């Protein structure tokens, strides 16, 4: 896909964060060429919702997340948050908005200052914003550290290198939470962690979301992780949106050939499912400096026709809350074959979150 359009956006009054026609381009040295990192992407998030942004490296998912934060500012497009267009705000006006939008990064160890103590790292946002007295700040930091499962007494005077990756990610989460934000943008928050620790952090994010009434943008390349945390998933390819849908629909009936290819590439932890050798995506992602004309996925798409090279597909509805930007989306019967089915009985346990 490579589609644009705004058919998938919902009524503006229902959403807390809404980005329209975002474009982010980076110049390539002084050659006059540009990297088209994000090209006309529109997304919106309702209060209390988790939006999953998923795609391969270089698809523009992190750049989209950063453009929402205005770092860097998008080249064009609008970002509406709390009724204001952030792209129009300057200096201190924009700064006033920042405490309500926070970010968590991929590498938990390098995102914490190695020379500072944990208590100071988490308290710093409060000091900068002069929230409450010293005593109140201290109390707030203790409470937040406890909420993320770090013992404040033991951790207060220690430095990040004395903690494991999972614990550092908990500290990063505490730092993001301490200002009571409304929206947190999580950029690959569990990709650097081991599977056993990854599950701890995913559960923690879910608990924090319930406890503090958060809205999350969750950026990741792991489709199973995104499915687990999201209320709505947006699939990106080469700077464009392909498909937007509720997770259970997206994974049971992918409509975009790229989503289908992604799903069929996932290894299933079940030896009775033989990995497929056909149907996996061939080729590589084209250069974002000179993206293909029309639909950007056409060069690797098994269904591409002449039309795909000429006309860029627009987002259109194919089901309830399910939108796709493709001229030839998969029919229901086709998409059923895609999804890797594990054995009838799941091996693992787990209960639905209430």
């Amino acid at each position, binding site marked *: 896909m490579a589609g644009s359009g705004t058919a998938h956006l919902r009524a503006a009054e229902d959403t807390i964060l809404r980005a329209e026609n975002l474009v982010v381009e980076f110049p390539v040295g002084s050659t006059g060429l540009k990297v088209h990192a994000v090209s006309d992407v529109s997304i919106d998030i309702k209060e209390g919702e988790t939006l999953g942004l998923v795609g*391969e*490296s270089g698809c523009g998912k992190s750049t989209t997340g950063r453009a929402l934060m205005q770092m860097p500012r998008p080249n064009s497009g609008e970002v509406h948050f709390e009724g204001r267009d952030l792209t129009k705000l300057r200096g201190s006006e924009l700064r006033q908005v920042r405490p309500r939008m926070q970010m968590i990064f991929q590498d938990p160890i390098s995102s914490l200052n190695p020379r500072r103590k944990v208590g100071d790292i988490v308290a710093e946002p409060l000091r900068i914003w002069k929230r409450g007295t010293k005593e109140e700040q201290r109390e707030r930091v203790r409470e937040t550290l406890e909420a993320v499962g770090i013992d404040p007494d033991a951790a207060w005077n220690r430095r990040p290198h004395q903690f*494991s990756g*999972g614990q550092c990610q908990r500290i990063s989460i505490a730092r993001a939470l301490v200002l009571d934000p409304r929206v947190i943008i999580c950029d690959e928050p569990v990709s650097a962690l*081991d*599977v*056993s*620790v990854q*599950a*701890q952090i*995913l*559960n923690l994010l*879910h608990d924090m979301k319930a406890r503090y009434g958060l809205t999350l943008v969750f950026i990741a*390349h*792991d*489709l*199973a*992780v995104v*499915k*687990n*945390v*999201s*209320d709505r998933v947006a699939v990106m390819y080469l700077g464009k949106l392909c498909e937007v849908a*509720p*997770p*259970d629909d997206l*994974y049971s009936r992918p409509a975009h050939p790229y989503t289908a*290819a*992604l*799903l*069929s*590439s*996932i*290894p*299933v*932890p*079940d*030896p*009775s*499912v*033989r*990995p497929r*050798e056909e149907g*996996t*995506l*061939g080729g*590589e992602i084209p250069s974002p400096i000179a993206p293909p004309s029309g639909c950007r996925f056409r060069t690797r798409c098994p269904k591409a026709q002449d039309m795909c090279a000429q006309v860029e597909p627009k987002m259109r509805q194919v089901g309830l809350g399910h939108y796709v930007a493709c001229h030839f989306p998969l029919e229901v019967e086709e998409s059923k074959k895609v*999804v*890797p*089915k*594990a054995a009838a*009985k*799941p*091996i*693992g*346990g*787990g*209960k*639905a*979150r209430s």
Partner: protein
Amino acid sequence: MSRKVISSTTKAGAAAASTNLLRVVDLKTYFRTERGTVRAVDGVSFTLDRGKTLGVVGESGSGKTVLSRSIMGLLPKRNVIREGHIYYEGEDIIDYTQDQMRSVWGAEMAMVFQDPMTSLNPVMKIGKQITESLIHHLHMDKHEADETALSLLSSVGIPEPAQRLEEYPHQLSGGMRQRVTIAIALACGPKLLFADEPTTALDVTVQAQILNLLQQQQRERHMAMILVTHDLGVVAGRTDHILVMYGGRVAEFAPTPVLFSDMKAPYTEALLKSIPKIDYPSHTRLEAIPGRPPDLINPPPGCNFAPRCRYAQPRCLKEDPPLMEGPTPGHLYRCWFPVGTPEGQEALARNEAAGATAAATPVSIRPTNVEEL
């Protein structure tokens, strides 16, 4: 020459084990550090038959990478203690000198590393990096080596191979670079290929391409492979046996179908349950493993997984379980209260009733499967 060295000196005793390509017996690899001795690999044994694939699975720090480097003799000599036996083609290679190993590397065993960005020489053309080992090991002349390199590159699915031979690594994408490292590893026709997290640095669609390529090459060359990964999903459909490592030791070793259908080690079960699976409904609560991997300098007394285990009983904190045999031949596990046995169920029920294990780790009652909710 390498091949001759190994097969002609094969001891009579090893003749019976003719299908065994590799037999590792009680391999220990310790590192001396300022803080103490790190027991990275602590008594690992397994066998690997010709043409078969072994998956080695574990978290970071479980010793899986050190295990493969120790077998290949790629660790430094200083401050490293290696004990045990590594029988390759019946010959114990653990005490081989660097010179002796040089005849094994490349021609008998080869390795594909995790990061294709750093495992290639950035200032050497791709062609040269492939022909280097062909000229050294197989004594080819330059022309013959170039021809072979060209066919290797096309066999690993690199488009326009002739042009690529003249390029440098930075001119290729991550997936293409990993194909080049595979071509280098395959160049001298090794009988055993180590693939250490070969797809961890790659995207999911490229991961599928690379895993399919490895499998296809392995079939065509009748080559054995040791696939090291932290992802049980990667090994499930692509291996014959799986070795689950925890804290430098074998937690469970079994034929792949048996491991998934009749797992005995609580660690294997916990690892599998902590992975979000694509066929679970959205917002399924994951069963995380509490705590963190064990300290390899001062391992806890008793079972090294006990502090994080849902099944842990007082005995687990005192006595270290030995490797025990499962109901299926070739299935080994290390646990006093194995999963799916009456003892295991009783232990779990006791812990659930008490709300905590013998190691004081909280235990919540878990539903038996997702559909019930």
